[in-house]
């Protein structure tokens, strides 16, 4: 069936089974790379995107639930030439090793900072709890989110 999804501010008409998880539509139909397949079980957060203003697991969210909702991925935050504040912060802190988990981390962090621009260290850790990183980049991820919060507050 055909369904209209609003992704990163644009409407896209997608032809897919309604039980298709959003992740597969983002990656294959819309050719967006950021959200990643990690587990398909909601256990790792690599697929995290924002719907309206909340972070969600796109691997477990059927597109049938998303008509009329505003979906955002890391691609909406900026580009390599013009990175957004959160992207800038991750680059400045060199907050990646393999980087596979990072877009999911960023969308969860983005949702946090939009809701709570002055998030404390503890609040950042709490918010990121659903997302796994295997390289052990955690310290840098926390620092990057703090840095982004400061940058956004100063902007």
């Amino acid at each position, binding site marked *: 069936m055909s369904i209209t999804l609003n992704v990163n501010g644009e409407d896209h008409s997608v032809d897919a089974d309604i039980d298709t998880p959003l992740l597969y539509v983002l990656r*294959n139909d819309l050719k967006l*790379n950021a959200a*990643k397949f990690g587990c*398909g079980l909601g256990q790792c957060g*690599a697929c995290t995107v924002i719907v309206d203003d909340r972070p969600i697991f796109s691997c477990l969210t059927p597109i049938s639930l998303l008509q009329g909702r505003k979906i955002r991925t890391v691609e909406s935050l900026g580009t390599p030439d013009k990175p957004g504040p959160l992207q800038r912060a991750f680059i400045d802190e*060199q907050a990646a*090793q*393999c980087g596979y*988990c990072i*877009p999911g981390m960023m969308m969860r962090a983005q949702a946090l900072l939009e809701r709570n621009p002055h998030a404390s260290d503890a609040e950042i850790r709490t918010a990121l709890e659903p997302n796994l990183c295997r390289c052990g980049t955690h310290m840098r991820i926390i620092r990057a989110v703090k840095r982004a919060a400061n940058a956004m507050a100063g902007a």
Partner: protein
Amino acid sequence: MEEFGAPSSLTRRRLLQGGGALVMSFSLLGPARGQGNPDAAAPPPAAPAAPKPPTLPGSLNTNRNLDSWIRIDADGQVTVFTGKAELGQGVKTAILQCAAEELALDPLKLKLVTADTQLSPNEGYTAGSMSMQDSGTAVRNAAAQVRELLIAQAAKQLNVDPSTLHAENGQVLGGPSPLAYGALVAGQNLHVEAQPQSKLTPSASFKVMGKPLGRVDIPTKVTGGLAYVQDLRLDGMLHGRVVRPPSYKATLVDADVDGVGKLPGVVKVVRDGSYLAVIAEGEWQAVKAMRTLARSAKWQEEPSLPDPAHLPDALKSLAAQDGTVADSKTAATGVVKTFEAWYTRPYQMHGSIGPSCAVAQLGADGVMTVYTHTQGVYPDRQAIAQLLGMDQSKVRCIHAEGAGCYGHNGADDAAADAALMARAVPGKPVRVQFMREQEHAWEPYGPGMVTHFKGGLDANGRIVAWDYELWSNSHGARPGSAGALISARYLAKPFQPDEQKLSINPNGSGDRNADPLGYNLPQKHVIWHFIKDQPIRQSSLRALGAYCNVFSMESSVDELARLAGKDQVQFRLEHAADPRGADVIKLAAEKFGWSNWQPSAGHGRGFAFARYKNHACYVAIALEVEVNRDSGAVRLVRANVGIDSGEIVNPDGIRNQTEGGVLQSMSWTLYEAVTFDRTRITSVDWQTYPILRFGAVPDSITVDIIPRPGQPFLGTGEGAQGPTAAALGNAIRDAIGVRLYDLPFRPEKVKAALLAGK
């Protein structure tokens, strides 16, 4: 990321034929110009009669021509080739820094081609923290020699003494007018063999090396760029999924191949013996078809796994061949106190966040092209060619990044599965990604190990007896032959894994770091009880045996220090065999505030040291834990690492890798063990195999680096794994007065130790 996209038609030959490759007479670079090679005791220049070629620095020794490493186009564009692969460890950036430094160029203006069987030198595996020693050294020396060739060429053109010229920003300066690199190489060839010695830029003059440089791959990764093999979308690409058996020894009885073949979008169901896979147009269609096929499949299983309730005994009961790792051939004398202990390590997982993935296509020219995040494109090519019954020249493996692998995970298996499926649909690219359960249950784990230590002190509190034994498989079961690929074992005509052989060499395997070379010991005896059988699939996990060996040895040293009544740091310093080892010990202790430690209830401090592989980086770590005595839960509070990686290329890269190593090792050490019953692996996701989450992240990890200008690069990426485990055990010992010997230190074990110990 120009290496992505449709299979490139580039070949090395085409590259060399391309306009304006660098050609120079090798004789222009006289041997007298070379300075001391910092990375190897360079032999004297080969005499014409000598049949044996000289040893060249790093991987230059196996890929001896300069154009294997550096290419300069007529427009001045410099391309650097490495046989190593970016695994998220930042090797691309560090190699670019080496090349840029010696070529006097902006590193961001260089192009880099990484592992590709058609383009790059063959550097084997990207493993063992060897990338900088192998490839970094080769690229740096090649770049320095190319720079000198350019200067020599300019001197010839300008008819001046080369010593009056220097290279800067893509030009040779010092003459009447600047000469661009591109102009100097027009119409020439760099297909010349490198020399043993290079005129390396002195550390004091570094502009790029030794400085933090932002990783070149990070901007793409944080903006949703094309960064991973998972992101490849070739024209007409299909999606494949495998259906794995429920257990290692299962054979397929029946499956609804025809029915699944009729599902929407399904292009083909592949069945070959007990191997099952589906290929579909859409990825979700492939997943659904895979599930239907899995539901329909009937298997015959048989138990084959060791008794998980008695794993150490099970491991020790497997047939073993003894190898001597170290033997002073002297008897211990003057022993007045002894310490003896058994240690165990479970099977542990790489646990990549992204399940392994590959894209393969059988072209009309009969060439199978495979995009893979393997750690070794050449060995993987060999294995896949054997699997498919194709000539190696008809298989091309191109490295494309995956999620961090930390060793031999499912990457090669995914490449093989993609190739098997691509062969079933000629012409069509097929992308295969494993499901989480498949990655968890089928990757080759870090092997379970048992170790035994018995050591003694003399009346002065010095270690005078050191007896260490370990029971372990080999930690290397990588491709090279098809039997190393999991799917190959289930085909109608199956391939068997290669027999493992005991080999004791300086790199080490199960015995890595088992020789206590870091300490001055009058007597030592170290035996590896090499286990040949592999009841559970296993291979290389970051640090190999060093993780468990350093844990065992440094836990024992801690107890010996207690027996001697000495401070843990002081005791290690008294035994340190190498001043550089002593330096990192002092650095970590000082930065931690070891001597100012204030004991408090439930808190403990721990220390450990090892020189990775006994010839790579020196790592010392001091850390603090907090133990909840009711629940047994352990929290790492803070850690200070002192590290000496030789000449520093990218200090932030060293820090990033080391911080990551501490956290990953902490997760292994506190939480991780692969679970199984007698038939099946039962660690199939992050519930059944939990790893570190943010709630347990320490307050701080600080990495301090000792700069060693002019010294050889020392591999960094795996150096923290063993010391972190030992320091955690030592800190728990300090906090609760009881030592833990059986990894991991889950709360129930800490609690049991508390109850038993008091």
